[in-house]
Every structure is written in C-alpha cells, then in structure tokens.
C-alpha cells in the first residue's frame, strides 16, 4: 500500500489527516502531547481524577474543534490554550478552599510532593538538613497561597520550562504581563523564605 501510515506522517500532515476525519491520525497526534498535558494537569491539580478529567475534556474539545485550527499558531500553543483554560477553571473553583493539600493521590498510593526533597540534596550536613526541612514547609505553604494565574505561570515556567513569550501566547496575554505574574509569584516565595534567601 503506497499510502503512509499514521506513524510516518509529520505533525502538519497528521493535523490535516485528522481534520479530514482520520481518527488514527488524531490519536497519533494526541500521543505526541498527552504526556506533557497530563503532567501539567497533575502538577497543578494534584489529583489524578481531576487530571484525567482535564485530559479527556481537552482532547475531546480539540477533536471537536480541529476543523477551526488554521495553523496561525503552533498546534502546541493552541492545545495548551485549551488545557490551561480548563486547569484555571478547576483552580478557580477550588479557590474557596483555604488550603490545598500537597499530598497527591496516585495509582501507586499517596505521595507528598514535598517528600521528594531528599536528604541527599543537602549532603547530610545537619545544619543544611534543618534548612531543607524548614524550606520545604515554607515552600509548601507559599505554593498554596498563589493565585490561579500565578500558579499557572509558575508551573509553565518552572516545571514545563516554557519561555515567558510562549506562556503569554498560551494565556492570551503579553510576555510582559506573564513576566509580571511570574515576578509576583517569585516575590511571594521570596517574602515567605525571607530569612533563607
């Protein structure tokens, strides 16, 4: 058969094939991005169930609206606009809560994100270990104090490694506004860790 398989198509071809109704091409496209989408949702929402909801809703929206994608931005940016909007909705709904737990419920059991800060990172020095333990506690409290937008910008910059210019595009704002948001978040962190930094 002369026709290419989905695996052989590049992204533009995959998008065009998916736009013409090729579901295998669409699922191939999903697999290029779904791990980072799930990671973003999981880190922001700290619940596998909510992350799974965002994953489903995001890719179904993409599927239903793919014919409206005109290649005037990258597919990554377009997809992340959808995902970040869904995550922000979740975060705003939760804002009524005074404090979010840092314990994640995962398939492997509960995980406290803060427990991943290991002793190895402080070289076994007792004084530095105390520093690390207290630091962990303060960081935990401060992350919970971020507004949803600060949290989103912080997550996209720190954990997803996106540049502020791209973050601005995704969130429908300017690079400068994204920078201000990141600055506010880091100032909150700095104020909370005043005697450390």
């Amino acid at each position: 058969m002369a026709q290419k398989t989905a695996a052989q198509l590049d992204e533009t071809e995959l998008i065009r094939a998916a736009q013409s109704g090729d579901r295998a091409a669409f699922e191939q496209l999903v697999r290029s991005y779904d791990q980072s989408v799930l990671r973003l949702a999981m880190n922001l929402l700290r619940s596998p169930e909510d992350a799974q909801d965002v994953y489903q809703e995001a890719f179904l929206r993409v599927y239903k609206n793919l014919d409206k994608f005109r290649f005037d931005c990258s597919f990554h940016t377009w997809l992340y606009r959808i995902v970040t909007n869904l995550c922000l909705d979740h975060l705003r709904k939760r804002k009524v809560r005074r404090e979010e737990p840092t314990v994640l419920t995962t398939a492997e059991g509960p995980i406290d994100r803060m427990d991943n800060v290991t002793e190895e990172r402080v070289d076994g020095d007792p004084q530095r270990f105390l520093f690390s333990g207290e630091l962990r506690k303060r960081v935990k409290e401060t992350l919970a104090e971020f507004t949803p937008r600060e949290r989103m910008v912080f997550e996209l910059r720190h954990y997803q490694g996106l540049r502020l210019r791209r973050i601005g595009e995704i969130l429908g704002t300017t690079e400068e506004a994204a920078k201000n948001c990141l600055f506010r978040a880091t100032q909150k962190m700095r104020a909370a860790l005043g005697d450390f930094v």
Partner: protein
Amino acid sequence: MSDMNCQSAKELLPLYLYGELSFDDEETIESHLDGCAACRTALERQRQVHASLDNLAVEPSPALLRACRDELHVRLAHESGAQGAGWWERFTHMLTGPAWMRPAGALTMIAIGFAAARLIPPGAFTGSGALEMGMVEPSSRVRDVQPSGDGKVRIVLDETRQKEVSGALDNEKIRVLLISAAKDPSDPGLRAESVEILNASAQFSEVRDALLAALKDQNAGVRLKAMSGLKSFAQQPEVRTAMTQVLLADVNPEMRSQAIDLLTKGMENPVDRFDRQVIGAMQELMQRENNAYVRQRCKTALEAVKASTETY
C-alpha cells in the same frame, strides 16, 4: 560596583535564574553580583530554592496515562459514532478496552447470542467455509466485508489468541518476549513493567541493547527504569555514549541528573578516566541547562575533575 542596590538585586534573582531578564537588567545584576558577596550568597540560596522546587514535580504514572488513552479512545469512537463509526468497533472495544467497560461488553455479547439464537434459523452458518457465531474471538477485528450476492455476507476477521507462557529470565525465549514487550509502542505501562523485569538480566548483551533503546522511549517512566538497569554497566563504552546523549538530549531533568551521576560514578582517578567526550558534553550542558539543580550537579562534577565549567 553598579548602582543597583541589594534589595533590587535580590528581587530580580529568581527572574535572573530563569534567564528572563532583559539584556540590560542581566548586565546590571551581574555587575552588582561581581562586587557584592551578600548577593552572591543570596543567589546560591535562590538556586537551592529552585532545586527544591524541581524535586516537587510529579510524573504521571504509566498506568494513569494508559487509562487516559483508553478512555479517550472509547470517547472518540463514541463521538464519531454518529458520523459512521461501526457498532462492531464500539462493541469490540467494550471487550478489549478499559476494565470498567468490560461487563457492559460481556452483557452485550450475551444479548447478541440470545437474539441470534432466537432470530437466526438453524443451519444458517453451516455452509462451507462459514463461521459459527460462537467461534468469533472477542478480540476479533473485522478486516473486510463483502456481500456474496446470495443474501449472505463474507467477513474477514483478524484474530489474536492469548497464550500464557512462564519461565525464568535465563530462558532466552522469555527474554525475547520481554524485549519485544519493552518495545510495544501502544502500551507504555507494559514497556515500563517489561524494562523493570529486564533490569535483573542486564548481563545479557541483547537485554542491555534493549535497555539502551529504552533510554529513547517517549515515556519518562520507561526511560528512568532503563537508566536504573544500566547503572552497573556505566563503564561500558556504549553505555557511556548513550548516557552522554541523555545528558544533552533528554527533556527530563531527573534523567539528565542521573546521567551525570552515572557518568561520574566510581572515578578513582578522575583525570584519567573522565574522557574528553563526557567533559565536552557536560561543558555544553552548562551552556544550555535551564534546571538549576542539574546545572549545580554538572558544575560540581566538572569541578571535581578540575575541568572548566565553560566552553571556549
């Protein structure tokens, strides 16, 4: 000493570490840091904060990713159902898809069997070459359908049959199956589990080859497990080459960090054994690494072998 005061400098340190300051601001802060020991200490502390934050990142489990993909597959089939997706596809997916759908699939199958027994006249499937409904495998996939002109239809099915085998890892056939499973593109959970089992038999060269291939898996969980299996073979040239590639190309900071550990592991005489390729790769990493913790590990490793942390 620049005209920037310590308060302003400290406020900008996080953005400085993210590389998000303008050229002028970066110049000013670097000039200030050159002459201010207190702010240099603050910068180091800020790096520690970044490193601590890095460790809070959570990688979704392969099982969760698989569950998401399975559910999406079903929902997409349902979405496109109105536009022509076949009932058979949806039905077979009920039997082979997520566990929560399987009871529904089984009930549907019983219902079909019951209806078929009542509606289909005896002997309808007894012609030459015809299939009896009971022989159809639940995982069958319809490959082709053609009307045969006499009111019947000719259906070509792809069938897969399950078979269970068991054996120890010193059995070559078991290893071949596991290596094949470690490459299954459709199932990251299966790949991760297979790689983890294979790690116990990395003394076999074909297993090491599979683990080296798994270092390029699209799933970070699979890559991390493969990395773990190769730790004892860090001195082998092909492993060192693969680790160097991980160092420069892997998107996951934990992978890069482990590659540094593995490449520098057990060095009794660093200058002799730390080859130029690795030093070059680590110096290159220093130029491009965004992750503060990985940068620090890389810097420490280079300093340990008295290599420059910069390229010229």
